[in-house]
């Protein structure tokens, strides 16, 4: 009996301190402990877990965070005047202030919720692996691929579309290739992802992990000849599906002079620096 009263007194003390903290920091959810502890009926108070602490990690400085500039900010090589890109970037930053578009790469697993007038709840959510990122500026798109009920589904989302309500990165990683179109001809296990996948934690300072998985393909014919050197895919296990003669035959389409052709070289390092600074300045406004 005495123990009970002591515990009740302790609880009341805790509640008083919590109420004080509550007034100082409105972010806390109401505990409802005072409400139930003072209850007169004989039932024991319903257990409500304590509020989760808010962790603010001040150990890592801003300088050590990974610098990332989304590729659609970098304008393609063209004769368009710079004004169009400046204005477009302003609009992109405006949209980013409203909707958080996280950092992701081809090969990361994303979940996108989009407004849909014909879905119940008016939103539909799709989870998939990002196979391509195309376009630049406001029209930038990314394609998510998943296999649902045995049917492969690829959905192309526009990053800055107002219909998109949330983009969540469930697993942040890179792959060996910039373009994962070959997953269409790979075994289905490489493209199936659970819709209820839990987001995996990722480190904001370390380098993005590269998933070096080499994908096993279905037997030929494929939708495109992925072994040809113009694709230069590293992420396919050719040794399991092609003979060395076929690999050599594919090399006939090799163009070894292409990497030395200086007309095709486009160095974007300085452009990236300038655009990164501009975007950071705009975001902080």
């Amino acid at each position, binding site marked *: 009996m005495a123990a009970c009263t002591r515990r009740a007194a302790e609880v009341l003390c805790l509640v008083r301190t919590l109420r004080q903290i509550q007034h100082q920091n409105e972010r806390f959810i109401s505990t409802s402990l005072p409400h139930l502890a003072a209850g007169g009926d004989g039932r024991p108070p319903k257990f409500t877990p304590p509020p989760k602490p808010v962790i603010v990690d001040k150990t890592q400085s801003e300088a050590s965070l990974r610098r990332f500039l989304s590729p659609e900010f970098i304008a393609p090589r*063209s*004769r368009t005047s710079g004004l169009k890109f400046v204005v477009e970037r302003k609009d992109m930053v405006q949209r980013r202030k409203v909707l958080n578009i996280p950092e992701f790469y081809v090969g990361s697993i994303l979940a996108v919720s989009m407004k849909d007038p014909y879905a119940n709840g008016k939103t539909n959510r799709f989870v998939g692996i990002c196979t391509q990122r195309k376009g630049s500026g406001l029209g930038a798109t990314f394609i998510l691929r998943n296999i649902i009920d045995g049917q492969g589904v690829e959905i192309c989302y526009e990053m800055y579309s107002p219909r998109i309500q949330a983009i969540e990165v469930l697993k942040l990683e890179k792959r060996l290739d910039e373009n994962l179109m070959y997953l269409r001809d790979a075994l289905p296990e490489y493209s199936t992802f659970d819709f209820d996948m839990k987001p995996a934690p990722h480190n904001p300072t370390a380098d993005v992990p590269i998933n070096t998985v080499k994908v096993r393909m279905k037997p030929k014919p494929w939708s495109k000849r992925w072994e040809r050197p113009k694709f230069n895919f590293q992420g396919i296990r050719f040794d399991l599906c092609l003979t060395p003669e076929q690999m050599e035959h594919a090399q006939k389409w090799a*163009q070894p*002079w292409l990497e*030395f*052709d*200086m*007309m095709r*070289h486009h160095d974007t390092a300085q452009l990236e620096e300038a655009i990164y600074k501009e975007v950071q300045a705009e975001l902080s406004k």
Partner: protein
Amino acid sequence: MRLTLRALISHGRVARRMGLGPESRINMLRNILTGLVRHERIETTWARADEVQFYAEKLIDYAKRGDTDEKAMQMANFWLTEKDLLPKLFKVLAPRFENQSKAYTYMARLPNRENLDRAAMAVLEYKGNPFPPLFPAKRENELTLINQLLKGYREERAQLSGSKP
């Protein structure tokens, strides 16, 4: 249904079509570029000179990185078919253009070729070459009447300003 005529429309294409195909074009430009690096002034058709001008300047940009740079050495090794020109590129041409940033070449048109094809010819050279200049500085004729009068006027002015202070 294909809605674009890729074969006929060439919007934004910078590279000319030369020779028998892309490989042939690159090989031809390689030979001309090697000749340019060896002789520092060459004479070809206007179209080839125009293409090689771009590649010649980009090669100098790569050479400026230095011969310790892996990428620069690979590019120079590819573009110069005669390997005794590699030291010349890195040790003579790159230091010559250290202070310039863009224009390392001059191109001037020549009279059309005497052959049946009457092809438009051009001469392409690296600046700082030992030959007499392509665009010599024109001196006005001092013995015309007006120039003599002006010369006299300038001398009088110099005398007056010399005697005054």
